[in-house]
């Protein structure tokens, strides 16, 4: 039964990602739930002309948002890494920049230089677009964004006397997700608030790659505790124990 999805290294798991790919980055923003090792592996792999899809995208590296600040803790990594490296030309996210501009985040820097298109989406719309892609729903109506710049160029329609926006499903070529535990079928279990965008993203990409602390045999995750079905996961990579990234 050909269900073993374990890949030996992060480098191997991202090796085939071509230029021009769209990449979903799971979690919420900050270190918990971020697939940091997959992100760094893709940075090292060097694919160009990427579109990044995330949530809180570029605020940690300059503000420590969602990262510990102890002296032995690692420097924050955020989705700005793909803009600092010149690999990404576009980001779709809800929270690209922090309140402060001193220092400038990598995404804002790239945007100011005209090197990055930044598509800012309400968080609830973004997660629903991703969920829709995985669920076979091509489009849906939402009240969020009506009467704001988000509505520009979009259809509106009334239902029951309230106005709604038509929003479309958002697919990606690859999704990077981060979980605490995987079984070899690809079933995933998360801890606390680390799941965030990962379960929906896992359903919405052609290839879903999971970065996990621990890989167990089938049965190592209880049938009641699976939060991402193995059906959605194509590749699993286990971190080294003691990895300083959370």
């Amino acid at each position, binding site marked *: 039964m050909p269900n073993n999805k374990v890949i030996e290294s992060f480098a191997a798991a991202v090796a085939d990602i071509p230029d021009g790919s769209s990449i979903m980055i799971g979690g919420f923003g900050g270190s918990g739930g971020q697939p940091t090792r997959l992100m760094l592996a893709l940075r090292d792999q060097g694919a160009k002309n990427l579109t990044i899809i995330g949530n809180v995208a570029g605020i940690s590296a300059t503000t420590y948002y969602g990262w*510990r600040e102890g002296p032995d803790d690692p420097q924050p990594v955020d989705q700005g890494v793909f803009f600092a490296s010149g690999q990404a030309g576009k980001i779709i996210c809800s929270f690209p920049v922090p309140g402060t501009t001193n220092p400038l985040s990598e995404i804002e820097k790239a945007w100011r230089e005209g090197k990055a298109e930044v598509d*800012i989406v309400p968080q609830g719309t973004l997660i629903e677009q991703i969920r829709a892609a995985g669920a076979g729903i091509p489009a849906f109506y939402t*009240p969020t964004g009506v009467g704001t710049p988000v509505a520009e160029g979009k259809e509106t329609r009334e239902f029951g006397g309230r106005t709604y926006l038509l929003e479309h499903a958002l697919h990606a070529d690859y999704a990077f997700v981060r979980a605490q535990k995987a079984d070899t079928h690809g079933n995933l279990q998360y801890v*606390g608030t680390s799941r965030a965008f990962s379960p929906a993203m896992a359903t919405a990409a052609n290839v879903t790659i999971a970065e996990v602390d621990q890989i167990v045999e089938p049965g190592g995750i209880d049938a009641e505790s699976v939060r991402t079905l193995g059906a959605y996961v194509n590749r699993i990579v286990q971190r080294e124990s003691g990895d300083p990234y959370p």
Partner: protein
Amino acid sequence: MNPKITTDPAPRLTRTDIARRAALDLPDGGIVNLGIGIPALCSDLLPEGVELRYQAENGILGFSEMDTKLDGDPNIMDAGGNFPKLVPGMAFFDSVESFNLIRGGHIDVTVLGGLQVSGKGDLANWIIPKRGIGSIGGGMDLAANAKRVIVAMEHTTRDNSPKIVNECTFPLTAPECVDEIITDVAVIKVTSDGLVLMEAAPGWSPGDVQAITEPIFAVSDAFTEFRTMKT
């Protein structure tokens, strides 16, 4: 348009005062989402005996207190990057469920910051036009869909221009969404007939507040001094 005034009749209140007053309007046992900035301060300032169940966009419901440590578990955070204390009855979930709660109208109250609020209750709080880039986060979903929206902010900009305006000049977060505005000088209710001044800071008359508020407001029959300032 009101003329700008240059001297205040009495000191304006602090950010903590604003948050304490907003906390007074949070319903005991309610499900509440606090935005970043002044709203986040509310959780430490609840009246005695009141307990809320906070929701945060990143997938947590039911916490009622924050931890102040900086080295908490990064897998158990709120959306502002703070560490909630674990309490019995909490639940963790993903972002789909989190926005089902928000967009589905299951949040009793949200307290949000504001850059501008119009006389109709339009809210602008996500982007400063001259910067050209901003962050929406969960704010638009909360503003458009929470059962009750309280804006907690300073009454004016640093150069004393009104932030409560006839029409927002900044891009909106959501139109006609605000129920109540709590500032460092006033508590103002948004009604279908326009703004109604409910409370003012000690030493501030309705006229003093009106002088730094662009839309003309009515004064409530129940007008009183800022309720948290009374002893």
